[in-house]
């Protein structure tokens, strides 16, 4: 029991430590694709360190919700990240399954959306409203992806999902649907744009506009973690690897990183090649994801 606890902690720390790197890498790749030199891949770490030492500014209109929200967002992101296998499947029965994961993410989103309304600025309300809108539209597609996975593996448990499994048509289509859902959930182009602060376009950035200092650092870290979890889920659908084992953990970590990097590269290429959509066109994109989800479920029910 003891070594497995140690390994689980190890993989968790590895996961958390690598999360900002992935964001940095995407930013770096985007810049290289645009023929710019770009920032260092370690820039997110510098940002976190800088924000962590800054004094915070709280708006006078806010209440304890605003103070508390970053902790809730962080708690939801961290507890989901506990379920991700890097080099071994986490033995945490009772923490939940694929379905519970959706609900746990919703917890963080709920508090962040409330915090955005708490400052009384129109930006916050705008971000909050749009975030809830986009995530609502993403939910049916996500639900169908979970269904198709559950039908393929006869279970919604993440442990069953984490093992080696044959990649069929269903998995490929489901991963495409999940990719679109991920774009919405991690505020990427074409749904949202993390790089701008224009009132017409921002969603996530509008919600965190009033945050500064450590709270902002915690929120950014939570976003990095959430993104890693999404990347892992997509990667596991199309590039499944066998039940990871403890003795070759370096190799498994390398595998894990390699798979995540492929998804990151896909995101970077997509972000530089398409423009951001109008908010009301996001429904079309997620409707498409829903259709893909239906196809994935049909394929899964047919066993292909």
């Amino acid at each position: 029991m003891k070594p497995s606890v140690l390994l689980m902690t190890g993989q968790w720390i590895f996961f958390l430590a690598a999360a900002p790197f992935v964001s940095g890498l995407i930013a770096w790749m985007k810049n290289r694709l645009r023929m710019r030199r770009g920032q260092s891949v370690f820039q997110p770490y510098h940002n976190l360190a800088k924000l962590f030492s800054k004094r915070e500014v709280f708006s006078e209109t806010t209440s304890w919700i605003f103070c508390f929200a970053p902790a809730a967002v962080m708690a939801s992101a961290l507890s989901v990240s506990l379920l991700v296998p890097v080099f071994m499947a986490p033995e945490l029965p009772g923490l939940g399954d694929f379905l519970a994961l959706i609900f746990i993410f919703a917890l963080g989103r709920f508090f962040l959306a409330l915090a955005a309304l708490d400052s009384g600025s129109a930006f916050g309300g705008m971000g909050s409203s749009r975030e809830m809108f986009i995530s609502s539209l993403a939910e049916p597609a996500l639900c169908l992806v979970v269904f198709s996975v559950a039908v393929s593996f006869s279970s919604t448990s993440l442990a069953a999902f984490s093992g080696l499994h044959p990649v069929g048509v269903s998995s490929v289509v489901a991963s495409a649907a999940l990719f679109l859902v991920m774009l919405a959930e991690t505020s990427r182009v074409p749904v949202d744009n993390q790089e701008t602060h224009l009132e017409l376009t921002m969603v996530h950035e509008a919600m965190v506009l009033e945050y500064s200092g450590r709270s902002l650092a915690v929120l950014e870290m939570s976003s990095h973690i959430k993104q890693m979890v999404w990347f892992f889920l997509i990667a596991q659908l199309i590039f499944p690897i066998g039940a990871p084992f403890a003795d070759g953990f370096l190799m498994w970590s390398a595998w894990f990183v390699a798979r995540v990097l492929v998804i990151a590269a896909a995101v970077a290429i997509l972000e530089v090649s398409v423009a951001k959509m109008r908010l009301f066109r996001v429904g079309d994109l997620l409707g498409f994801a829903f259709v893909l989800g239906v196809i994935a479920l049909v394929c899964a029910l047919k066993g292909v």
Partner: protein
Amino acid sequence: MGFLHPLFLLDPLSLFFLFVIAVISLPVCVYSLGYLQGTPSRKTLLFWALLAAFIASMAFVVTVSNAFFFLVAWEIMSLVSFFLVVFDSEHEKSVKAGIIYAVMTHIGTAFLVAAFLIFYRYAGSFDFQDFRQAGLLMPSSDRNAVFLLLLAGFGTKAGIVPLHVWLPYAHPQAPSPISSLMSGVMIKTAVYGLIRFVIFILGAQVSWWGGLVVVLAGISCLVGVLYALMEHDIKRLLAFCSVENIGIILMGVGLSMFFFSLQMPFLAVFALLAGLYHLVNHAIFKGLLFMAAGSVYKATGTRDMEKLGGLIKKMPQTAAYFLVGAMAISALPPLCGFVSEWLTLQAFVMGSIQLRGGAGLFLGICAAAFALAGSLAAACFVKAFGVTFLALPRSRHAECAGEVPLSMRMGMGFLAFLTVAFGLASGFIVKVLSGVSSQALRVDISGMRFSLNAVTLAPSLARGVSLSVPFLAGTLSVLGLGAWALLRLKAKRPVRYRTWDCGYYKLDSRNEYTAKAFSKPFRVAFSFFLRPYRRTQKIRESFYHVTSFAYETQTTPVFNKYFYQPLLGLVLRSAKFMRRMQPGSIHLYLGYIFVTVLVLILFLKAF
């Protein structure tokens, strides 16, 4: 009077519903003490008498074992609740709401009477046991007819779309403790009726019955939550949300019927269990939310969210209770709403895994609708809590608000405690409810492969899935505390400064996002159903000088406009036509009697 015997039935199903009634009635009574402060004493007395009659009639509805007395209790419940809806009869709105309610509920009762009479034809008595025998004897066409009549009758009371129209009028207009009881408990008696008569007595053996209930429930979920999102009257919002939650409960019930008819008894027990779990949860958190909304109304004198805001600072306890209720209804872990929605989704998933084929796809799409409704509900309650309680007050009413009396806070506190407890104790509750649900379906669950120990929920029809709510709650709170330490430990004292205003001027409450603005994206995306329209009017001195600008945006109530209004018009027109037959002339009336007698004689001769 042999047909009246025996009178009471206290099986686990009835006891469960009695428990739900008791557990909500108690805090409602405590809450009412504070709520009635300032009401004239004659009216207070009337209120308590009606409240007692209301609770007693609901208790009778769920315990009698005779359809005749069931109808009597049902009718008393409807009438007493009608009087409670029009309790504030000085408001014109209350009277209108009361009339709509009275008409709809009696249409529902008419369906029930018809269903019971068909039963009586085969049973020869009104006793439930005889009904059960009769259910076996009936030809399938009569069984289908009885099912549809029961569904329409109970559906009216439960508020299934499109029979929900009375609900958003009646529930908000009643005094808040009564809204709690009506939304929390009274509409649940209709679910009791469905389970008692369709599952327990008729035995759901036809798979389209379950399928129909699931589809109607899914429609109710989506329609209810979409209207709730558009609403800015806080109690109407909650009432529409009841339509949604009744949908979720009926999804469990319908799935159970569906699985039962397809010879999957264990899954049927599981789905019914999920539905019953959501039923008690909804009773708790909707009771809580209506009480909190009532406290806001009491403190500010308005239910319009656009005039509220910033109440978290004026009434911190009410705000905390509302937040707990909002989190539970948005199915956030680790509160009770999360557990029951998770169980319902698991029932869908397990059904899909086992059934495969077209049925599997049907379940998947229904679950997607369910997921959409769930996340729209979360958006709805971000709006409800955020606009009502956060940021700056939008009117003087909200500015001058203060915390409500202790008894009101105690009522809410008790239900908020239950909201948490029913999440944490989910293992135990599932164990108890599996007994109730297996008894209702008459399935022996000793061989059932659910591990139902006190802590973990493991519906192990699906391999390796388990959820332990205490563990999840513990993990979340430890990680939350860790994050809190990271945020605050050795941190410099935060500076208080005004909200960023782009450097123009000091922001005030007019710059805040409103409830209408919050729901705008949803209004646009679902415009095919909501049919929003806007009216703008320029108020001008001359052609060149516009002094002010009036803007109004509304959504079209589709069911009212395209179904109920034409229907009402038809009824009124036919009434007008009938009036011609009664001009008040005695000669004509004598003529009618003569013709009637003649027709009767001819009729008797012919047959």
